[in-house]
């Protein structure tokens, strides 16, 4: 496939003595939302962290826009155009909402300011709590801040790790709506346990099990495949 934004080939990752990822492979096309599915401990977060350079791949290749980024440090990978929203949101508690947003900005050009305005329209709560410390935000607000911060830079790809985790259903709905709007502007790799959210947002899916890619395809096909959902995702 020539039209590939991100490609993982034979990725193996060890964390200390544990072999977490075993020959993980997947591809992401521009403009799509690719969802990584799988049970707890399947290796989804480690896959995102390996792409981001936060965990080093023992072997295999991560290619982004045709360039091998496997051995690059995280700051270099981020500058290539990959934004990362971690599972724990990664908010700096000692900084206000505004400072969190500004720390996330690598440039202060017109395009960045435009994106900042757009993202603040998408999450009006952030504007309201601009001077509030990150540590005092609710779980949903933290999640919105984390997603918003990853968007202010000119990123071609966003890696979003379990954005619905620990959030009330009303807030999950808001997060889904915001990611729906963001996917019009950027490519997304989403790790999600909540199948409702995954199926609403995803165009393609990959299922990870025990650190291996065991299945992939179009999300529309997975919605209909009860056997696959039961076997790998525990959905009855």
């Amino acid at each position, binding site marked *: 496939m020539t039209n590939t934004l991100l490609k993982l080939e034979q990725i193996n990752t060890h964390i200390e003595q544990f072999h977490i990822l075993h020959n993980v492979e997947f591809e992401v096309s521009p403009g799509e939302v690719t969802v990584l599915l799988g049970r707890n401990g399947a290796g989804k977060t480690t896959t995102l962290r390996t792409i*981001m*350079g*936060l965990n080093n791949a023992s072997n295999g290749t991560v290619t982004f826009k045709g360039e091998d980024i496997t051995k690059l*440090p*995280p*700051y270099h*990978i*981020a*500058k290539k155009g990959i934004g*990362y929203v*971690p599972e724990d949101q*990664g908010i*700096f*508690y*000692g*900084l206000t909402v505004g*400072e969190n947003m*500004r*720390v*996330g900005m*690598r440039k202060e050009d017109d395009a960045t300011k435009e994106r900042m305005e757009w993202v603040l329209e998408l999450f009006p709560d952030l504007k309201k709590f601009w001077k*509030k*410390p990150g540590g*005092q935000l609710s779980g949903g607000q933290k999640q919105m801040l984390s997603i918003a*911060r990853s968007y202010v*830079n000119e990123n071609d790809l966003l890696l979003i790790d379990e954005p619905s985790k620990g959030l009330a259903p009303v807030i999950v709905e808001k997060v889904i709506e915001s990611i729906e709007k963001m996917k019009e502007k950027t490519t997304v790799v989403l790790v999600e346990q909540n199948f409702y959210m995954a199926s609403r947002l995803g165009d393609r899916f990959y299922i990870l099990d025990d650190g291996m890619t065991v299945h992939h395809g179009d999300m529309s096909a997975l919605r209909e495949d009860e056997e696959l959902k039961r076997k790998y995702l525990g959905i009855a």
Partner: protein
Amino acid sequence: MIKTIQKSTWIYIAVAFMLVLLPFFKDERWFLFLMIQVFTFGIFAMSYDLLLGYTGIVSFGHAMFFGLGAYSIGITLNFLESTFMNLFLGILLALVLGGIVAFFAGILTLRLKSHYYAMLTLALASLFLVLAEKWRSVTRGSDGFTFRIPELPGPLQDHRNLVVYMFCLVSMVLIFFGLRRLTESPLGKILVAIRENEGRVESLGFRIMPYKVIISVVSGVVASFAGVLYAISIRFVGTNVFGIDVTLDALLMTIIGGVGTLVGPIIGAGIIEFAHHYLSDLSDVHWIFERWIILFGIVYILAVIFFPAGIVGTLWHKLAKRKHKKQEMKQKTSDKLAS
């Protein structure tokens, strides 16, 4: 556009002004000397706060910069003529040496994680201590040496302690406002982010090493200047300036005053210096007061358990909570009115 001056700035200016007036009401020698120590160690503790409070770096070797500053000015004025030109040269030498050593120490050690870094800085400071002890021809070893500071013109010479007091006070105030500006700048915010989560900052696209080295150099230069003031105030330099207890003092002042507040370490310096003075005086009452550091050990343990944010930190948290509650109430009222 004229920037509005923060309310806290007016408070700090008012306190500084009161400190300017203080010697005119209480001009005893011992008191002036004690206050000079407070200002000197206040500057030193602020430099430590830059590392610990703003960047999350724990150093056990911060005394090396303090010692470098003290020895630079001492050796310069001991070997050269005691003139203002040479005094200036000694200060410049101290700042440059402090910066260079901090730069190389930073590059060598800041890649290491927490306790490994702390241990390596301790080793580096010990190296300087050994150097000061063994290079007797220059440092006079563990005996140390006294040196002369330039004579002040005219009647000022009769009020030399007052001049040193004012010089130390003005230095502390200027350094405080300078560092506050630095910590409130975008660079300062990135430092706070590094303290909270290095990995997160890296994945936002920032290489953290240069930021750590920059703050290490700033901290080293400020600590070195504190060493200069210390040496000038006592006109003597001994190997004790490289001792671990100098670093521990800074740690204690920062933690008791409030980590990551800048003004906290100054208050911490005041508490420790005054407590040191008054507790030592009580040694006639009971021998335990001769070992006042034991009492401080207990205070330190209690502070960490009950006031982990220190005096200023605890006060700020309480004020922030009150402000937050007020804002919430205001929001609720306006929501009710709107509905």
